[in-house]
């Protein structure tokens, strides 16, 4: 019997050995591959066991917060977004299943408290038995400007079936003051703890056209139209230092293009200026004469136009934490007629509302373009700053002398009777001095019969140090002056009133 017992003991030993080997294999060797399996929800759910930090505007409005979800919640905390559709381009959303966008995505490490910068603090919280909380992320957004921007876009675009976006920047720092997109969505629906509801909401959003999930402020690429004349003018003045805003330039009613039978007309086949075939640059800019700038463009050449465009930030991926920005582009045309079209923001030129804001921002800041940024700083639960973004120069777009000419011309657009923005500006109550450039771009994407895209880039105040630069693009909105400019101005007014300069 004892011999058999010893054999049984041996069998038992083998069984335990197998168990030990298997758990060793699972927990020491397989642990990583198990944790990273796509169906494994534990990792993403782990984050919701810690109270995620708030997202705030620069003026202290909380736009995303996590609150205890109470006894019936699957997770400990529930994410809430206030004014969801208004702020969704900024906050993005954070689902409990690992999908994130916007600041929720770019600052996820800080918000969830897992970032390197928070390691020491987490450790201290642990030993002092304090509940761990993610860092509060403060954006550069101004709540008043943001509200005005969304309201403006919604008033123009509601029911139109088109989309539009707006970006407002502080020209001297690059802070993004407003970033609105239409159509928008409510991120609260995607933050639900109920997977069925999240899926339903997600599918409903996916089914809409245009998609509310696209951040039009930074991702929608539309032709910049006449706003690109800022770049053409810059290139011209930089090349010809003897020229200024009051220099005269060829401004025919119809520009005959070489190598083709096509001709370049002005809008509505209008004559430029007095019909003499010549006009000052400031006049041609204010009236937005396509013939003048098409002609200048052919003289400057595609390569030089491209290098100037790149100084304004085009053709370069915009690497801004918190936004997934599309790259605005200017490509060198292979023939003079196409160069003429490219100089007036047509051909294959594309820009985002962010790029439009950067045009005005560079001009407003004496020719120096600041790098746009969305995240101001992150503060830990004890209010100590764990990360902050300093302003940075992106590029020296034009010299201050050249910039002075551009400022005069952009002011003329709004304030001279021939200016495309004059009619609108005349009715503009409040007497705010605004500089800007309208754009009304034919967009083949909209179909032949539909209205052109409305574009407007501007800054204010034009009579003292500019505080805000705004770019707006409304797909199928019609004239830049009528569809886009009022929104930009309402944002500028809201912001300047908020900072005490209205």
């Amino acid at each position, binding site marked *: *019997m*004892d*011999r*058999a*017992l*010893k*054999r*049984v*003991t041996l*069998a*038992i030993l083998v*069984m*335990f050995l*197998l*168990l*030990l080997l*298997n*758990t*060793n294999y*699972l*927990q*020491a060797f*397989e*642990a*990583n*591959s*198990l*944790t990273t*399996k*796509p*169906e*494994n*929800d*534990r*990792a993403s*759910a*782990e984050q919701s*066991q810690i109270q995620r930090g708030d997202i705030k505007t620069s003026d202290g409005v909380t736009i995303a917060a996590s609150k205890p979800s109470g*006894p019936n919640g*699957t997770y400990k905390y529930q994410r809430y977004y206030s004014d969801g559709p208004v702020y969704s381009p900024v906050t993005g959303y954070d689902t*409990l*299943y690992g999908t994130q966008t916007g600041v929720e995505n770019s600052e996820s490490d800080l918000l969830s408290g897992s970032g390197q910068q928070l390691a020491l603090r987490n450790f201290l919280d642990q030993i002092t*038995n304090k*509940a761990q909380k993610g860092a509060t992320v403060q954006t550069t957004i101004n709540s008043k400007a943001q509200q005005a921007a969304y309201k403006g876009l919604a008033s123009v675009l509601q029911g139109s079936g088109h989309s539009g976006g707006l970006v407002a920047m502080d020209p001297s720092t690059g802070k993004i003051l407003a970033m609105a997109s239409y159509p928008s969505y409510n991120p609260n629906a995607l933050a639900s703890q*109920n*997977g*069925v509801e*999240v*899926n339903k909401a*997600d599918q409903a959003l996916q089914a809409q056209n245009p998609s509310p999930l696209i951040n039009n402020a930074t991702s929608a690429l539309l032709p910049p139209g006449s706003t690109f004349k800022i770049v053409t003018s810059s290139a011209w003045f930089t090349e010809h230092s003897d020229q200024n805003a009051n220099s005269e330039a060829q401004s025919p009613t119809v520009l005959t293009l070489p190598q083709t039978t096509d001709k370049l007309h002005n809008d509505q086949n209008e004559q430029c200026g007095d019909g003499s075939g010549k006009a000052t640059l400031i006049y041609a800019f204010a009236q937005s004469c396509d013939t003048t700038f098409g002609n200048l463009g052919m003289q400057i050449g595609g390569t030089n136009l491209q290098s100037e465009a790149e100084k304004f930030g085009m053709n370069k991926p915009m690497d801004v934490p918190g936004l997934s920005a599309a790259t605005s582009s200017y490509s060198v045309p292979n023939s003079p007629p196409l160069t003429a079209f490219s100089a007036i923001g047509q051909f294959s030129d594309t820009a985002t509302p962010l790029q439009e804001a950067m045009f005005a921002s560079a001009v407003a800041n004496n020719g120096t373009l600041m790098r746009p940024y969305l995240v101001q700083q992150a503060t830990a639960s004890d209010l100590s700053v764990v990360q902050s973004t300093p302003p940075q120069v992106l590029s020296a777009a034009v010299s201050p002398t050249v910039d002075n000419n551009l400022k005069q011309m952009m002011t003329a657009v709004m304030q001279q009777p021939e200016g495309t923005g004059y009619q609108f500006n005349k009715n503009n109550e409040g007497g705010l001095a605004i500089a800007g450039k309208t754009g009304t771009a034919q967009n083949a994407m909209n179909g032949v019969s539909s209205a052109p895209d409305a574009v407007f880039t501007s800054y204010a105040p034009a009579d003292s140090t500019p505080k805000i630069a705004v770019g707006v693009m409304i797909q199928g909105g019609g004239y830049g002056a009528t569809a886009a400019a009022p929104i930009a101005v309402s944002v500028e007014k809201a912001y300047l009133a908020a900072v005490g300069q209205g």
Partner: protein
Amino acid sequence: MIALAIGVVAFAFVNVALSLKDQGFGSLAIYVVIYAVISVIVHLVVRRWAPYADPLLVPLALLLNGLGLAMLYRLIQAGRNGNPGPTYTNHGVSHIGPIGTLTSSDMSKQFLFTLVGIACLTVFLIYVKEPRMMQRYTYLFGLIGVILFALPTVWPGSEVQGAKIQITIPGLGSIQPAEFGKLFLALSFAGYLVAKRDVLSLAGKRVLGIDLPRGRDLGPIMAMWVLTMLLLVFESDIGTSAVFMGLFVSMIYIATGRNSWLLIGVGMFLIGGISAALLIPHVGVRFSIWLNTFTPYNVDHNAYQLAQGLYGMGAGGVLGKGFGGGQPWWTPLVQSDFVITGFGEELGLVGVMAILLIYGLIVQRGLRTALMVKDPFSKLLAGGLSFMLALQVFVIVGGSTRLIPETGITTPFLAQGGASLIGSWIMIAILVRLSDTARRPAPKPIQDEGLTQVVSLK
């Protein structure tokens, strides 16, 4: 040893309370005190009624029982227990069904079951002074065992997750009678085999180098096999039938020392098991999810529990998330069948290995008792019970860590559930009594018979 067990368990409780920061210490203190009192009572009972018993058996069992209570406490404090699995299929978005909740009444119940288990141990030690007393009721025990096994098939409304292993008694909750049945059957086997071991081990002829038993002696093993297969067919319970067959085969092997019994037993079980896997859908599914756990369909359906358990083990890694730091509630039934994955997640590889070693130590003490004890009935019983415990740990831990196909049997001492805990304590009671007998010093001679004559070898 008892103090160590109390210390470890108290530490586990405090750890949970600290990790889940919002929880108070009020209920914690009560639980730790109750546990300490229970531990001291068991210690005194054993000192009084089984003074020579193995000093490790009871503290080890108490330690496991306490860790199980701490895990239950931890799940209750988190407000969640194992989620019942996906209630819908939704790839890529969510797998979460409604969250079931354990309440503090489950904690009280588990303490009550612990107390009942301790009470059973006490009663057993007081009334069963001599293990051989149990040998008298071989056939009665056998009958009781079979009845207990068969009970769920006839009891109304007993099917849980495809297997019929529970009976629900109104007002008392549900219990698994097989937990007691296997103890009765172990006693019955021991009695029967001791009586028949000579004929079973000697008679028969030799074929191909193997001593085959006589055809008529195959009766009992056939009967057990049939019973096992009936278990499989009517209760769809692979785990219990494997443990049950393993118990019988190991005991017949220990009793006879004949390899042929081993071959016949294992062979018959394999034949039965494989045909069951092919014929009974519920059993077949268990095999298929074992082989293909992570296929997109399985991972959301039948293999959800297994996969979640494995994720838990993976999340724990070597050192674990700390007691109260993981998310064991993802795994359905983490408070009972899959409790080891909960420990794997929170205590890590180190914790799981420690728990396995504790089981290993209990088994080793049981086997040591079997070797030490003189009388064949006790030897057989101790060996059989030890092997059964080892097999049960192997089947459930191996099942939930994907070493072998998953089967729903309980984890002794650690799992929530009354029958398993009480049954495990009765098993410890039997082992304590056996080891007490084995280690009891020989009675002192009544008269002084004088010194034995010393023979000089020079």
